[in-house]
């Protein structure tokens, strides 16, 4: 994008990093309040069991114990709500069983909270929690979504028949798609699992709540991605306390990845209990607790078919997915496998007929909700696996088959947006551009020669492609509302110009690693022509900001940044009136550039700082103008934004052990206009590492008893630097045509694009050695790859 004062498009170092790298970040657990007390939760060791009795008698007499609460104590309180409604095909509302703050009747997943102990110290709370005696009567368990819908499967909730939360479809009718499939020369079919992921933010969830009796006001410090949303949900939907008497603060937060977007039962419980105990109560999850109580991600069981004509043109796509929602609905739970998944089934292709059918299912597992990418990685994985596999099956080149099917370039201004078969209207795109760029970085022709040489030398070398699109910048409120959102998804941005010309920005988005304090300040510095040092970005406090919807869905810059721009425009407009008055000119003749208001065609000017001072010391001032220079704006986008890109992985597979070595990873991402290239690159790197993690290393393993068998870092494998090659990243820029920054969002691109590229590369490597394997279950551990080779004829 064109920069006004050279601050946009510049890799400014992150201003927030001084406090992070010197250990001066202030996280919720760092906050110790006067008379602080601590909570510890008694959690179920069983995935499904009736609670026969809870005996707190021994625990209550333990040293330091102030209170113990059980499910019975909170039976009259509402559960934590779901923020998104998905309907059954027949129009019935989804099943929405209560998600209680503490369970009274039966536990539904390992980690379900049964009791909360409050004590003077963390240690005392934990020791006492171990003395709470719970009698359980074990019940049969179901963990797999496709199994849970079968007749006779254990019932997670008595009032949810067959554990079906909703069944939902989108796109063309089944009959139309079936008809189109009949005309296909080739159908590529794949049955696969998109495995359960655990977010593993480095900062565990942490809450600290207190009640100020004199002012009748609650305060909650919380490791959240969306403080205002938590305040609204907790005050109005759970506790029934007045919203204006609740302050929610999200201080520094160490990573969210979607899992900190939910309103959790523990937040409400601590807030409620802080009034009863009369002292502040803090709880910070232990890592073992995070594994079983943080909202998890993905977990789809899918059958998908893609029909092609004999030239490789896609004719139809048919998708059936069983989406595991876990034991209860998360805040965004049902939206993820429906409106953030089914709507992306067009991909980058001109597929004329698409039907996607999703059944949302309850199981005896931890809640599933948004996890970086949320729905879009699952859709991309499906499409990109199918198209690469189709190329192998049809003997076509995986790049050629994509070029044949891409939607042609359109800028959304001179050419209209692209209307998909699955509700969305793409804003702008140049899909062949990113693939061409990727192929050139790879040196594609040369690679295929190397691959043939490797085959001759008995090695397995493979390349995998992923050309993805995502819907970001959540979201136009009217569209979101029509799709079932129970909230608007606009954003607030306030620009407060101080009398000395320094600027404080209040944003309703929330940074938990993204670098908003830098990127947003660059936008403001560029537009106002003032130094970044004169700008402070403030976020995360419901008493400071008018409102906010928080950060998720790669929305902060596209939506939150646009709200700030709206307020800057208002500041400049009012500034012109003040300047015009001082310079005895007409406001209409004023222009603002380089931090100065100038009378057009003259050298008469006044600086931004002088205008600011005049606004607050209005001695020489327009009669009809209010003092002050402070504007709050709400920006509601007119469409989603649609970043896209091309990711390419090169792998070598060890024939004897099945071990996959990732040799190269190329990412060409088009995220629209870029404010800070370094921060975008950082977001891509982190996302790609996480996407590779899903492909090769990570995945929750629940056994048939619903026990998470890899609930520690000794077993749950996070990707590490030495597992990864140096990433080769670049950008293409197709501006977003409908927001003032032209930005599309970069936070999730990596996880969306990377996963299928890596898996496709492994499949390609195996085919190069004659192993015609269609699928290997993620993560592609060495044993799974080895077994796939053993099972296929060489």
């Amino acid at each position, binding site marked *: 994008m064109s920069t006004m004062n050279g601050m946009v498009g510049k890799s400014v170092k992150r201003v927030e990093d001084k406090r992070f790298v010197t250990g001066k970040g202030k996280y919720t657990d760092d906050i110790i309040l006067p008379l602080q007390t601590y909570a510890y939760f008694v959690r179920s060791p069983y995935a499904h069991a009736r609670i026969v009795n809870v005996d707190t008698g021994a625990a209550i007499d333990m040293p330091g114990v102030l209170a113990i609460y059980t499910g019975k104590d909170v039976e009259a309180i509402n559960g934590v709500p779901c923020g998104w409604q998905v309907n059954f095909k027949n129009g019935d509302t989804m099943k929405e069983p209560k998600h209680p703050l503490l369970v009274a009747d039966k536990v539904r997943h390992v980690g379900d909270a049964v009791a909360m102990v409050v004590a003077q110290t963390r*240690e005392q709370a934990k020791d006492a929690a171990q003395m709470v005696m719970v009698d359980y009567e074990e019940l049969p368990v179901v963990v797999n979504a496709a199994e849970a819908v079968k007749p006779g499967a254990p019932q997670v909730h008595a009032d949810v028949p067959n554990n079906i939360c909703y069944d939902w479809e989108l796109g063309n009718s089944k009959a139309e798609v079936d008809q189109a499939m009949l005309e296909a020369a080739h159908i590529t079919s794949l049955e696969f699992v998109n495995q359960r992921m655990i977010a593993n933010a480095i900062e565990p969830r942490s809450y600290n709540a207190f009640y100020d009796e004199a002012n009748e006001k609650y305060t909650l410090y919380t490791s959240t991605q969306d403080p205002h949303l938590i305040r609204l949900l907790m005050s109005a939907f759970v506790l029934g306390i007045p919203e204006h008497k609740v302050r929610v603060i999200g201080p520094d937060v160490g990573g969210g990845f979607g899992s900190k977007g939910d309103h959790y039962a523990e937040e409400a419980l601590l807030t409620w209990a802080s009034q009863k105990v009369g002292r502040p109560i803090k709880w910070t999850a232990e890592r*073992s607790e995070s594994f079983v109580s943080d909202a998890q991600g993905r977990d789809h069981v899918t059958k998908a078919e893609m029909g092609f004509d004999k030239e490789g043109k896609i004719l139809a796509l048919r998708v059936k997915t069983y989406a595991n929602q876990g034991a209860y609905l998360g805040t965004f739970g049902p939206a993820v496998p429906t409106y953030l998944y089914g709507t992306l089934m067009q991909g980058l292709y001109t597929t004329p007929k698409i039907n996607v059918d999703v059944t949302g299912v309850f199981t005896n597992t931890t809640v599933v909700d948004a996890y970086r990418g949320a729905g879009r990685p699952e859709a991309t994985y499906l499409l990109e696996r199918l198209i690469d596999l189709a190329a192998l099956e049809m003997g076509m080149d995986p790049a050629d088959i994509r070029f044949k099917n891409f939607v042609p370039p359109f800028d959304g201004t001179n050419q209209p947006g692209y209307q998909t078969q699955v509700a969305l209207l793409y804003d702008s795109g140049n899909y062949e551009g990113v693939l061409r760029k990727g192929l050139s970085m790879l040196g594609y022709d040369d690679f295929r020669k190397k691959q043939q040489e490797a085959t001759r030398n008995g090695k397995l070398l493979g390349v995998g492609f992923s050309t993805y699109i995502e819907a970001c910048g959540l979201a136009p409120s009217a569209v979101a509302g029509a799709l079932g959102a129970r909230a608007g998804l606009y954003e607030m941005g306030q620009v407060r110009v101080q009398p000395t010309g320094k600027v404080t920005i209040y944003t309703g988005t929330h940074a938990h690693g993204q670098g908003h304090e830098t990127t947003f300040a660059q936008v403001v510095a560029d537009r106002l022509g003032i130094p970044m040092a004169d700008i402070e970005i403030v976020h995360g406090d419901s008493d400071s900001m008018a409102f906010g919807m928080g950060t998720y869905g790669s929305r902060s810059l596209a939506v939150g940044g646009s709200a700030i721009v709206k307020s800057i425009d208002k500041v400049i407009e009012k500034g012109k009136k003040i300047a015009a008055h001082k310079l005895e000119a007409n406001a209409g003749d004023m222009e603002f550039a380089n931090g100065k208001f100038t009378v057009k065609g003259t050298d008469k000017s006044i600086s931004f700082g002088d205008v600011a001072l005049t606004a607050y010391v209005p001695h020489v001032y327009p009669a009809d103008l209010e003092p002050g220079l402070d504007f709050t704006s709400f920006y509601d986008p007119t469409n989603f934004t649609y970043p896209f890109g091309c990711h390419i992985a090169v792998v070598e597979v060890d024939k004897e052990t099945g*071990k996959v070595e990732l040799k190269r990873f190329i990412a060409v991402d088009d995220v629209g206009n870029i404010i800070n290239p370094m921060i975008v690159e950082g977001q891509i790197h982190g996302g790609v590492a996480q996407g590779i993690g899903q492909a090769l*290393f990570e995945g929750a393993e629940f056994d048939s008893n619903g026990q998470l068998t890899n609930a520690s870092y000794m077993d*749950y*494998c996070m990707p590490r630097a030495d597992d990864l090659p140096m990433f080769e990243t670049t950008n293409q820029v197709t501006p977003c045509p409908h927001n003032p920054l032209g930005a599309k969002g970069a936070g999730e691109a990596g996880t969306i694009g990377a996963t299928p590229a890596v898996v496709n590369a492994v499949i390609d490597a195996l085919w190069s050695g004659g192993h015609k394997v269609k699928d290997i279950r993620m993560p592609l551990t060495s*044993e799974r790859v080895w077994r796939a080779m053993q099972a296929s004829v060489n």
Partner: protein
Amino acid sequence: MIPVEFDYKKAISVEEALEALSSGDSKLLAGGYSLIPAMKLRLNQPSMLIDIGGIASLKGIEEEDGQIIIKAGTTHNDILNNDLIKTHLPFFHEAASMIGDVQVRNRGTIGGSLAHADPAADWPALVLVAEATIDVVGTGGKRNIKAADFFTGLFTTALAENEIITAIRIPIPANGSRMVYLKFENPASRFAVVGCAVLRSSDKKTTIAFTGVADYAFRDTAAEQVVSGKILDTNTIADAMNAAVYGVNVLSDNFASEDYRRHLAKVYLKRALQAIA
């Protein structure tokens, strides 16, 4: 994250540690990289920790009478960077580089690792093929345990409850010996799914040991017999692979099933033999 309450005593001598060890439900703390996590998970709840990490006589690496003596409290990192080790026992140097990460290597000790006897730890395979002896001292006096007799089960050793390992004595391999340690790591824990150590003298006497494969590290005498005295050609190596891991109860877990682990052990034996052929 929070262990149960315990007492802590920092011992300044082996004698003092032994005295403390004889009273009550106490545990020795060396580097703590296995014990502390287990205590934080409350899997282990000793009433007292005796910290032997500060005992000077338990640190250092020396050469004496054709042996390398590694004192039990020597960290993995000190082994990694030691010149005697690099010169005489290069595979100890390699193995040390594969243990955990920098933090683990800076704290963890060889004595602690051997006493803990994790089935997937690296050192057991090396002390077995090097035919080391483990010096221990207890209230009843000193004794030396052959490495071959030391590992007796899952997290179980020949060490008595009130004994402390003081040193590991490793005969310096004869000139012209070749040695290698290869490890297929669990990608999460970086412990050995399969670790294979081989030591072969110039007269072709060969010792082979595996770690990670079974409840405890073991010498694979069947495979040793196949290769000892023979040239390591393709056929001999194939025969060794066939003979290896025979009759062993192979471990199985989320990451590697019994079949796969057995297969990996054979592949890693092949690679180890090829590396020193």
